[in-house]
C-alpha cells in the first residue's frame, strides 16, 4: 500500500489540496450540470481516498508546510467523507432544484467550483502546519460558504449571506489578532520569522511563552473561531445560513465547517494547556458550551422552519462538544471526539432527509409538513431514525457519546452535570415534539411531481454508520480516539 503511494507524483497530503483545487478550476468551466455533478463527485471521492491513505502514511512535518497527526487526521477523514457523500446527495438535489427552476442553470459552474474550493480550503485549514495559513484557509472557507449561502439570490438568502458575511468577517478579524498575539508570544522564544508560526514548533515551546499574551490571544481566538463554531452568543449567523442556503451546503456547514473551526479552537487550547502559567482554557469552553446548549435547546421550541430547527440543534451539539473538550480528561475528550464524529454524520444525514422533505412537500415550514411516514415511508422513517439519533436515543452512536459525557461529568463535577442534563432534556423534548408532528399523523399534501427522487444512499450510509457506532466501536478506532484524547489533555 505505502509503496504504491510512493509511486504517485505528489504526496497524498498534497493531493488533498491539489485535487480539489484543480477540480474547482475545472468545474468553473463546466456548464452542464450532469457532467459537473459527476466531476464533483469524482473529485470528492478521490480526495476522500487520499485522505484514507493518511491513515497508513504520514508525511514528515518538517519538510512540508502541511502536517498530519492523530488529531487532524480524524477531522480530515471525517470531513472528506462527508464532503464525498454530500456531493453524491447534491448531484440529485441540485438537479431537482434546477428542474423546478429554483436555481438558475447559470449558477451551476459557480456552485460546483465553490464546492470544491470549499473542500480545498477546509483541507488546507485542517492540515496547515502554520497558524497564519490556517487562518487564511478558514477565511477562504468562510468566503466560499457565504457565496454559496446566497446562491438562491432570494431576499432571504442574500440577507442571510450578508449577516453571515459581516459576523464572519468580524470573527475572522478577531481570530487574526489572536494569531498575531500568538506570534508575538512565540517570537521571543523561537525568534523572528516563519518558525514562530509553525504549529509543531509552537507546541514544542509553548511552555516558555509569556502566559499573559497567550491568555489575551486565546480570548480573541476563541471568539474568532468560536463564531465559526457557532457557539452562543456568537451563533447568530448560523441558523439563517443553514436555513436559506442550498441544503447540501447546510449539510456541509454542519458536518464540516463547524468542525474545522472547532479544530482550530482545539489546537490553540492545546497550546494554552501546554503552558502551565496560562489561564486554563477549559472553564471558558465549558461555559460557552453550556450557554450554547441551553440557549439552543430553548430556541428549538418555537422554530417554524425545519432547516432552522436543525441548525439550532447543531448549535446545541457544538455546545455539547465544546463542553466535553472543556471538561478535558481522557473520558470527556473521548466523548467529545466521538460526539463530534457522530454529530457530523447524523446532522448531515438529517439535512439530506430534510432537503428531500422540503422538495417533496414544497415547503420548509414545519407546520405544513405532516405524516411523512405515511406519505413517504422510506424518507419519513429515515428522518425519524436521524432525529431519534440526534436526540440521543439508544442505540445510536450519539447516545453512546452522551452517555460517556454525562456520566463522566457527573462523576467528576455533579454541579456541572445538572445544567448539562437539563439542556439535554430540553433539547430532547423539543426535537421529539417537532418530530411527532412532522413524521406522524395525517399526511399533508405533497408537491405533485417531486421529480426523480434523490438518492437515499448517502443518507442510509450515514445512519448505518451511526447505528453501528452505537452498537459496536472497533478496538483500533477506540484506541486511536483514546490516543487523541490523551493528546488533547
Amino acid at each position: 500500500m505505502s509503496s504504491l503511494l510512493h509511486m504517485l507524483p505528489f504526496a497524498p497530503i498534497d493531493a488533498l489540496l491539489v485535487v480539489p483545487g484543480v477540480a474547482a478550476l475545472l468545474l468553473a468551466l463546466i456548464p452542464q450540470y450532469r457532467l459537473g455533478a459527476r466531476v464533483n463527485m469524482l473529485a470528492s471521492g478521490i480526495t476522500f481516498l487520499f485522505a484514507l491513505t493518511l491513515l497508513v502514511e504520514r508525511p514528515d512535518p518538517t519538510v512540508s508546510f502541511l502536517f498530519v497527526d492523530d488529531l487532524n487526521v480524524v477531522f480530515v477523514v471525517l470531513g472528506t467523507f462527508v464532503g464525498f457523500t454530500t456531493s453524491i446527495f447534491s448531484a440529485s438535489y441540485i438537479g431537482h432544484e434546477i428542474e423546478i427552476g429554483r436555481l438558475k442553470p447559470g449558477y451551476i459552474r459557480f456552485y460546483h467550483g465553490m464546492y470544491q474550493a470549499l473542500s480545498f480550503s477546509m483541507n488546507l485549514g485542517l492540515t496547515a502546519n502554520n497558524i497564519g495559513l490556517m487562518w487564511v484557509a478558514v477565511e477562504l472557507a468562510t468566503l466560499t460558504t457565504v457565496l454559496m449561502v446566497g446562491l438562491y439570490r432570494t431576499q432571504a438568502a442574500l440577507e442571510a449571506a450578508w449577516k453571515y458575511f459581516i459576523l464572519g468577517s468580524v470573527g475572522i478579524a478577531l481570530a487574526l489578532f489572536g494569531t498575531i498575539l500568538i506570534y508575538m508570544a512565540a517570537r521571543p522564544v523561537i525568534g523572528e520569522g516563519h518558525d514562530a508560526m509553525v504549529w509543531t514548533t509552537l507546541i514544542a515551546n509553548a511552555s516558555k511563552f509569556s502566559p499573559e499574551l497567550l491568555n489575551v490571544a486565546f480570548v480573541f481566538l476563541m471568539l474568532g473561531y468560536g463564531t465559526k463554531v457557532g457557539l452562543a452568543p456568537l451563533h447568530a449567523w448560523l441558523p439563517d445560513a443553514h436555513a436559506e442556503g442550498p441544503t447540501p451546503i447546510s449539510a456541509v456547514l454542519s458536518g464540516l465547517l463547524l468542525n474545522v473551526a472547532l479544530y482550530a479552537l482545539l489546537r490553540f487550547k492545546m497550546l494554552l494547556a501546554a503552558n502551565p502559567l496560562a489561564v486554563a482554557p477549559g472553564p471558558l469552553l465549558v461555559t460557552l458550551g453550556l450557554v450554547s446548549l441551553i440557549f439552543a435547546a430553548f430556541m428549538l421550541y418555537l422554530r417554524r422552519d425545519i432547516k432552522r430547527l436543525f441548525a439550532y440543534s447543531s448549535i446545541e451539539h457544538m455546545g455539547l462538544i465544546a463542553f466535553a473538550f472543556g471538561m478535558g480528561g481522557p473520558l470527556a475528550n473521548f466523548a467529545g471526539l466521538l460526539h463530534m464524529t457522530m454529530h457530523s454524520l447524523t446532522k448531515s444525514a438529517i439535512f439530506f432527509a430534510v432537503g428531500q422533505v422540503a422538495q417533496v412537500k414544497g415547503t420548509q415550514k414545519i407546520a405544513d409538513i405532516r405524516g411523512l411516514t405515511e406519505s413517504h415511508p422510506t424518507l419519513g422513517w429515515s428522518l425519524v431514525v436521524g432525529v431519534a439519533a440526534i436526540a440521543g436515543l439508544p442505540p445510536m452512536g450519539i447516545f453512546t457519546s452522551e452517555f460517556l459525557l454525562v456520566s463522566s461529568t457527573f462523576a467528576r463535577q455533579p454541579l456541572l452535570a445538572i445544567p448539562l442534563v437539563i439542556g439535554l432534556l430540553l433539547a430532547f423534548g423539543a426535537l421529539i415534539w417537532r418530530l411527532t408532528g412532522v413524521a406522524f399523523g395525517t399526511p399533508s399534501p405533497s408537491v405533485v411531481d417531486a421529480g426523480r427522487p434523490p438518492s437515499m444512499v448517502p443518507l442510509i450510509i450515514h445512519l448505518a454508520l451511526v447505528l453501528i457506532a452505537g452498537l459496536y466501536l472497533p478496538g483500533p478506532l477506540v484506541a486511536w480516539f483514546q490516543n487523541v484524547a490523551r493528546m488533547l489533555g
Partner: protein
Amino acid sequence: MERFSLDAAHLLAGGMVLVSFMMLYQNRILGLLNVFAAHAVVLSLSVAWQAYVQSAPHLFVTAAIALILKAIIIPVALHHMVLRLGVHRDIETVGGIGPTMLMGIGLVALSMVVMLPAAAEADPIAREDLALALSVILLGLLIMVTRQNAISQIVGFMSLENGLVLAATGARGMPLVVEISVAFSVLVAFIVIGVFLFRIRERFDTIDTQALDDFREGRE
C-alpha cells in the same frame, strides 16, 4: 535614533487611535468616509515607518495597498454609492455621541490594561503598537455596533481591519503580513461589492440593516 524611531511609531499609532475617535465622533456619513480615508493614510504612514525601521521592504507593499485601496479607491467608491443611495443624511447613531465617546475612552483604557503587562517581554515598539492597535480594533467594533447604516458599519469594519494591519506590521518579522493584508483587502472588496450587489439588484431601497431584518421577521 532608536529612541526616535520608537517615538515616531508610537506617534503614528497614537494618531490612528485619535482618528478612530474622530470617526467615532463623526455623525455624517460623508464626513465619516473622509475621516476614514485619513485613517488609512495614517496607517500607510505607520506601516511604511515600520518597514523602514524593521528594514523589511515587503511591508512597503502593505503600505501601498493601504494607501491606494483604502485611502483612495474604497472611500471614493463608497462616496459615490452614498450619493446614489441618497443616504447621505445624518447617521442615526445608537445612543448619543457623548456616551459613545466615553465608551471609546473606556475601551482604550481596557486595551492598555490588557496589553501592557501582557506584552512585557515584547520589545517596546511592538508593545505600544499592540496596545494602540487593540484600541483601534475595539474602537472599530464600537463604530460598527453604534451605527445603523450598513455603509458606516463597513467603514467601522475597515477601521478595525486597519488596526489589525497595524498590529501585524508592528509584530517584528511576522511572516505572511502582506498576504494577510491582501486577503483582508479582498474581504473588504467583497463587502463593498456585496453592497453594490444589494443596490444594483434593486433588492432593497435602503441598506439599513434594520430593514434587512424586517424581511426575515415577516417570514419566520
